[in-house]
């Protein structure tokens, strides 16, 4: 199940920032991806909410700055 979440998270991240999905690791984030700016952070939040049918709390949403953090947050919400 968690592999499925990881796959979908990485697809959303790849689509949002325009990077190849294969290039993503758990550590990929705003420090490693140049396009990861504040505007794209908002796109990311909206895209994640649309992909998983969830609503992120604002504090959680702005803290989602790595693939690992996103995967963790989605698993918590989906648990």
């Amino acid at each position, binding site marked *: 199940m968690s592999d499925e979440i990881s796959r979908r998270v990485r697809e*959303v991240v*790849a689509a*949002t920032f325009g990077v190849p999905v294969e290039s993503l690791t758990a550590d990929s984030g705003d420090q490693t991806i140049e396009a990861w700016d504040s*505007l794209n952070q908002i796109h990311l939040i909206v895209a994640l909410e*649309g992909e998983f049918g969830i609503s992120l709390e*604002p504090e959680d949403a702005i803290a989602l700055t790595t693939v690992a953090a996103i995967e963790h947050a989605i698993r918590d919400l989906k648990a």
Partner: protein
Amino acid sequence: MPMTQMEPHRSEVVSILATVTEKPASYLAAARKLAPLRSELTPAKIVALATFTFDLLHPYIVVEGARRGLGLELVAAPFGQLEQQVLDPTSMLHAAKADVVVIAARIEDIAPELTDGFVALAPAEISGAITSHVERIVGLARALRERSGARIIVWNQPALARVAAGLADPSLETSQQLAIAELNRQIAAGCRDVPGTTIFDAARVAAEIGTGQWFDAKLAHLARCPLGITAQLAVARRLARHLRGNLLPPCKALVLDLDNTLWGGVLGEDGIGGIALGDGYPGSVFKAFQRALRSYRDRGVLLAIASKNNEEDVIELFSQHSDMVLRLDEFAARQIHWTDKAASLRAIAADLNIGIDSLAFFDDNPVERAWVSEQVPEITVIDVPADPLRYIEALDESGAFDHLAITAEDRMRADQYRAEIERKHLERSVGSVEQFLEALQMKVEIGRIDAATLPRVVQLLGKTNQFNVTTRRYSEGELAAMLAGDGAIGLWMRITDRYGDNGLVGVALAVRDDATTHRLDSFLMSCRVLGRQAEHALLFAIAKRARLQGATTLLGEFIPSKKNAPAVRFFDDTGFTAIGDRPNWWSFDLAPDPQPPRWLQIVEVGHE
């Protein structure tokens, strides 16, 4: 008429758009991929002057613009800069040389006295506050008009998420709700006097999706964009229609497919009594669509037919089916035959004496749509959803027939064009079929009929009428017995293409007449895969197996029926020779080993 070359980049745009779902991530990915392909569409530069973060809408507007033939480049001025951008000749707005400027100013952002401060206003002050906001917005448009040749689109004001007086609002002498309606009326009146300026009805879009969906508090505070994702998408769609209306002329004629478009089902297979068209579901859906088409005709749109069908069947249906809303004489032109639709559309444009770029094409079949958009990129191909319940919406939202303003000329009736046709000689030009078929990436699987495939084969034998050379029907028992015969060969064919799996769509049966002769007992294909020369692959596969059994000749027989006219050319097209003294009999020389068309990837399953 000049031939149109296939444009591989244009087909790239079509493939990218095909990946877009309702999910935001798919828009983000598609918008990125579309950016370098702008010049394949009608390119245009859009500058937004907004009081909120308009940038967030960019990916959605780019994708929805591409769906309407526009290669949009969007630039948002820093939010909140309105007058600065318009009045400063060195501003980003003027440097960008915009084709269209969108002014999106919310009273929540720049006229607080009309929002949270509303209850503090004395009734007499309300009209002053309205006038002052209207003067600011109309003044912006006017100042821009004096300094730029760009088209101007001005947003009006949607209902507020919160009314200051709460429940009391509707009882006020001038309610806040009515004040906004008055504000919108005055903005529209003021903009009518500014040439090249139209109103984007944000109030209408917000009403369509609901005020609760329009405003998103989280995005308002995190991103200074008050529009939720549903609103962003709805705005993008409607704004793309506006941009199309500003940048491209409206289409003049709507060319319609028939089967599964004007009615449910396939006339050639299901017959007049079997198609879905009537007052109950699902026939009612198609009837409603026909009524919507009539409303298009009433406002001056020409209707035409491009269908692969037998014309006499269609004429019979129009004259006999009591639930047809549209009459045949309401179509200004028609092309009903089995040659390709790009040629049909060119013929229709010539018949109606209008440019090919004035046509919009509506067909439920994605392969036909792809073929037409690649062959004749100037044509507006409507992105028809799989669900007929959404046909009307798709047609409306395409914007193909939108006028920014209604003139008397727009109301011109369609009838006058009809006479034109009778005089015209139809010219058919053949496009690059092969390139199209290659782009379809067809995979053809061919295998021996076995217990698993027998039921589907019997079903196809039983119901295929059009591309069926003998129309012999068999039960499962009869077919199994026949295939058990010495030398008998029974093959099925399955076709997959880039649009998906078409399923098991072809059957060929051959029996041994003598040591050197096999005879084609049955040969059929489902009509939805006609025109791709897949029949060559199936024929050559059965020919090869006959040769392996020692045959040198394969005989073919054509048994004419009321419906199998489409199959009559099969023997000629695939290399059979007519047998002089036996009408409707052909022979195929098995000595050569003909190769199927190179665009077919052939996979033979279960070699014996």
